[in-house]
């Protein structure tokens, strides 16, 4: 896929239509996700086409009965005696929401201190040191993530694990967090984690798909405290050069 940089917006519209029905090739999907971060028009178009797609779904009216709630419940919520334990573990639980709200207050109190700074890695040697150390190793890879104009983060992949190093990222606004994603060449985006702290790299996360099968990595902005199913507002994308 060549980047649709013609004056017409139609190439992007074509990608949006394909994305709404999950029909894009991974490289096209990565390309579009990068574009969506900066194009309000295409985001609105996607919301429109998603509605059309859901109406197409209404045609699947086979004369079949869905599984009972009790069947689904047993897999989703679990047996009644496990319910309390599971609820305590849920990320959306009230207590974790209160903690998130408290964290948001701290961020607001910082008053823009974290806008546009360069991060330091958790090892204390700085982002540049972490990247340099990786580059010096034969089996370590660096994938740099860009917005339309800036390099904002890098993903370091070493021994089957990836970690994201923020380089120049603003702190997310209140109620939002960053999510980072692996975009396989064949398959759907894989959620790798969420973060709000742009001063430190993330913890290392095992990759379920090999780096060789990865088209790109991406960072999106999502509602805080939820596990997104797929990226919504993508703010940076880095193609795997391998």
């Amino acid at each position: 896929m060549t980047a649709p940089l013609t004056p017409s917006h139609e190439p992007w519209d074509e990608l949006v239509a394909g994305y709404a029905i999950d029909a894009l090739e991974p490289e096209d999907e990565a390309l579009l996700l990068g574009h969506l971060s900066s194009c309000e028009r295409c985001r609105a178009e996607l919301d429109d086409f998603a509605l059309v797609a859901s109406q197409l779904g209404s045609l699947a009216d086979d004369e079949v009965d869905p599984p009972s709630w009790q069947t689904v419940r047993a897999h989703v919520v679990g047996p009644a005696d496990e319910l309390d334990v599971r609820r305590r573990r849920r990320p959306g639980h009230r207590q974790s929401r209160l903690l998130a709200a408290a964290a948001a207050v701290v961020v607001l109190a910082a008053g823009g201190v974290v806008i546009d700074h360069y991060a330091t890695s958790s090892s204390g040697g700085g982002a540049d040191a972490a990247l340099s150390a990786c580059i010096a190793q034969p089996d370590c890879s660096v994938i740099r993530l860009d917005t339309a104009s800036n390099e904002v983060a890098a993903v370091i992949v070493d021994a089957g694990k990836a970690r994201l190093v923020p380089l120049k990222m603003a702190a997310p606004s209140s109620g939002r967090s960053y999510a980072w994603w692996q975009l396989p060449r064949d398959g759907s985006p894989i959620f790798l984690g969420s973060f709000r702290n742009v001063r430190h790299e993330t913890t290392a996360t095992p990759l379920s798909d090999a780096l060789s099968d990865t088209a790109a990595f991406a960072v999106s902005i999502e509602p805080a405290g939820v596990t997104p199913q797929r990226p919504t507002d993508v703010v940076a994308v880095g193609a795997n050069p391998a």
Partner: protein
Amino acid sequence: MSDASLREDAQLVADIAVGDEAALEALYQRYGGACYRLSRRILDDAQLAEDVVQQVFLALWQGGGYDRSRGAVSTWLMSITHHKAVDVLRREAGRRKRLADEQGLVEIEAAGPGPADVAWTRLRADRTRAALRGLPPEQREVLLLAYYGGYTQREIADMTGLPLGTVKSRTLMAMQRLRTRLRDEVDDDNGTPP
């Protein structure tokens, strides 16, 4: 807590986020059937379809990802269901036959509403089916191969012998026409008392 079956969709999602199981059940009773039928139509396998529906509602229970600024809960649920079902289908590719062969497409176009459908679902399906029939056949084909067959646009190009650019442009035209047709019908409804 009030009767969950009377709450609005967005309120149910908000209640699910704080662990309200009755809200989850109400949302399942409202949309679980549509999600299951979509998943089963795509996968042609009852067990895989059930797995997908469980994944969808598990994701909702564990934190969701629904953003009300991006559209209705029903749209989001169908979108996630479709996404997961296609994902399963592609992972299973090569080991089993895909549904959306020519016969499958004919069935989708010809099918009538099922007995489990409530009135609004039936009405929506009727309208969507009519809008789909209003598409030129070549646009309808690429749309259904993608949506119900789970094929990527490149796979459709390979299957049909069409250039990839043609598949993309036909998909766009089909989606734009459907949007216009379905929007017009909603507008007509707004001016007509029930």
